[in-house]
């Protein structure tokens, strides 16, 4: 009896510990980011950092303005959202409401497979096939542009959006559909006016999480966007994102130097953005469960 109690106690405490650790790790990561990144602001103002128009980290004197990077990330993300949100939501509606059972299972498996493709592979495909195609289509000097990045990343956001939105749609109680159909609504009217409305919080969460994934994505985007840290004026220009900058330059920066600190400061900016997006998504998910 005593042994069983002890065992129970041990299991309970070890689970508690794991729970605490997962939070502690996040806090530690954030503190580490702060410690490394904030030292930049001894010599640089926050305003100059965020709104500075030039990113020349190794010129003399170096200039650490990340506005081009923020705009690069923003442009690529907006483009990816514009492509993946309508397609993703439509696909989720089709899978949840229209597709016959066997097709539904096949499609869901396909979506999961898409999620399992490593980002470097998607980036590679974007580089080899999409890049030249966009170059020829628009007759521009390089195919590595914000648009290429957007299309590539849309593929990466799609599985998240489809699977979470599909869950939200499937969770809409059957009685709502029955009531609408009993009033003589067509399938489409029922789906659009009732089911999609009822699932809206969950679908918004799906979109936010998809966008969160796009903003944080590094490898694929580094391969296909051309990586020019200039303020973009169109989708057909090379851009550089926040994430790609960190990945590309971390190796060549001097540890503890201002360039190194600036890269960590970019990390803080990314952390804050993703945190906000996930927070909003969470809010909607909770609202949809209520």
């Amino acid at each position, binding site marked *: 009896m005593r042994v069983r109690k002890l065992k129970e106690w041990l299991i309970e405490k070890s689970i508690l510990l794991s729970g605490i650790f997962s939070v502690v790790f996040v806090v530690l990561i954030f503190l580490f980011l702060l410690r490394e990144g904030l030292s930049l602001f001894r010599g640089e103002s926050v305003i100059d950092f965020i709104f500075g128009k030039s990113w020349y980290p190794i010129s003399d004197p170096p200039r650490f303005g990340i506005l081009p990077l923020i705009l690069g990330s923003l442009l690529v993300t907006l483009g990816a959202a514009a492509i993946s949100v309508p397609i993703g939501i439509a696909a989720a509606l089709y899978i949840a409401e229209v597709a016959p059972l066997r097709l539904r299972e096949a499609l869901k498996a396909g979506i999961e497979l898409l999620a399992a493709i490593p980002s470097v592979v998607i980036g590679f495909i974007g580089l080899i096939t999409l890049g030249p195609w966009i170059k020829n289509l628009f007759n521009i000097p390089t195919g590595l542009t914000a648009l290429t990045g957007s299309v590539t990343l849309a593929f990466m956001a799609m599985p998240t959006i489809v699977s979470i939105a599909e869950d939200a749609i499937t969770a809409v109680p059957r009685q*709502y559909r029955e009531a609408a159909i009993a009033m003589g609504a067509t399938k489409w009217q029922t789906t659009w006016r009732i089911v999609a409305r009822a699932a809206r919080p969950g679908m918004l969460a799906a979109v936010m999480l998809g966008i969160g994934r796009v903003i944080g994505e590094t490898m694929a985007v580094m391969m296909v966007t051309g990586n020019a840290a200039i303020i973009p004026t169109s989708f057909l220009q090379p851009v550089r994102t926040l994430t790609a900058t960190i990945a590309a330059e971390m190796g060549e920066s001097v540890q503890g130097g201002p360039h190194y600190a600036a890269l960590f400061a970019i990390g803080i900016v990314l952390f804050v953005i993703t945190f906000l997006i996930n927070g909003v998504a969470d809010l909607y998910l909770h609202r949809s469960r209520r």
Partner: protein
Amino acid sequence: MSEISIETRGLNLFYGDFQALIGIDLQIPARKVTALIGPSGCGKSTLLRVFNRMNDLIDGVRVSGQVIIGGQDIFAPGADLLGLREKVGMVFQRPNPFPLSVYENIVFGLAVHRLARRQEYGGIVEQALRSVLLWDDLKDRLHHSALKLSLEQQQRLCIARVLPLKPQILLMDEPCSALDPIATLHIEELMQKLKKKYTIVIVTHNMQQAARASDRTGFLYLGKLIEINETVNIFTKPAQAMTENYISGRFG
């Protein structure tokens, strides 16, 4: 009998190999309350769902025979399914208002069937809510979520939202089974008021409810219509021994 609202002739219904309704012949008079009673699984809900063809949603359902509503066989090829459901409203066992506002719940049918212009919506909403005696309670909460209402209010709203379609028939599938006894009485009173304009068919497992609230009662058993007559007759001098056994609580 006066004007007939629903008539079935030799109606059979199969779920796959299982025959759920066997040779049903009945006539349901207009502007009366007709109750369908019988033990669980006797086919009373299935029969109710024949009248607005909600059984079509289930895979493997086959129907033979005729069901005539408004002079048309509703199972004839090319029958207007959406029009039928406009004409035949349904209220479900559990109140199921849409997760929208009270107002949006009521205008849903109008929007779906394009029955009125937007300027007319306000008046129609008021009239529908007045018909179910909800207007005074809800006139200041029209844009609140319908899910925040009490169960009784939700069920009244579910009745109200089919009224703007100007149905001739209201089907009610155990509409009080989720409600407390007081709310049940209120809904029964409402049915008495509504039957002046609508033909009401109610499925109930509650024999007292059938006795209190209906003008005619049909007793179903194992997919067959055993007997249908004036409610008074069914409950005082049923023609069939089986009916008597059921209403006196010997089985069911």
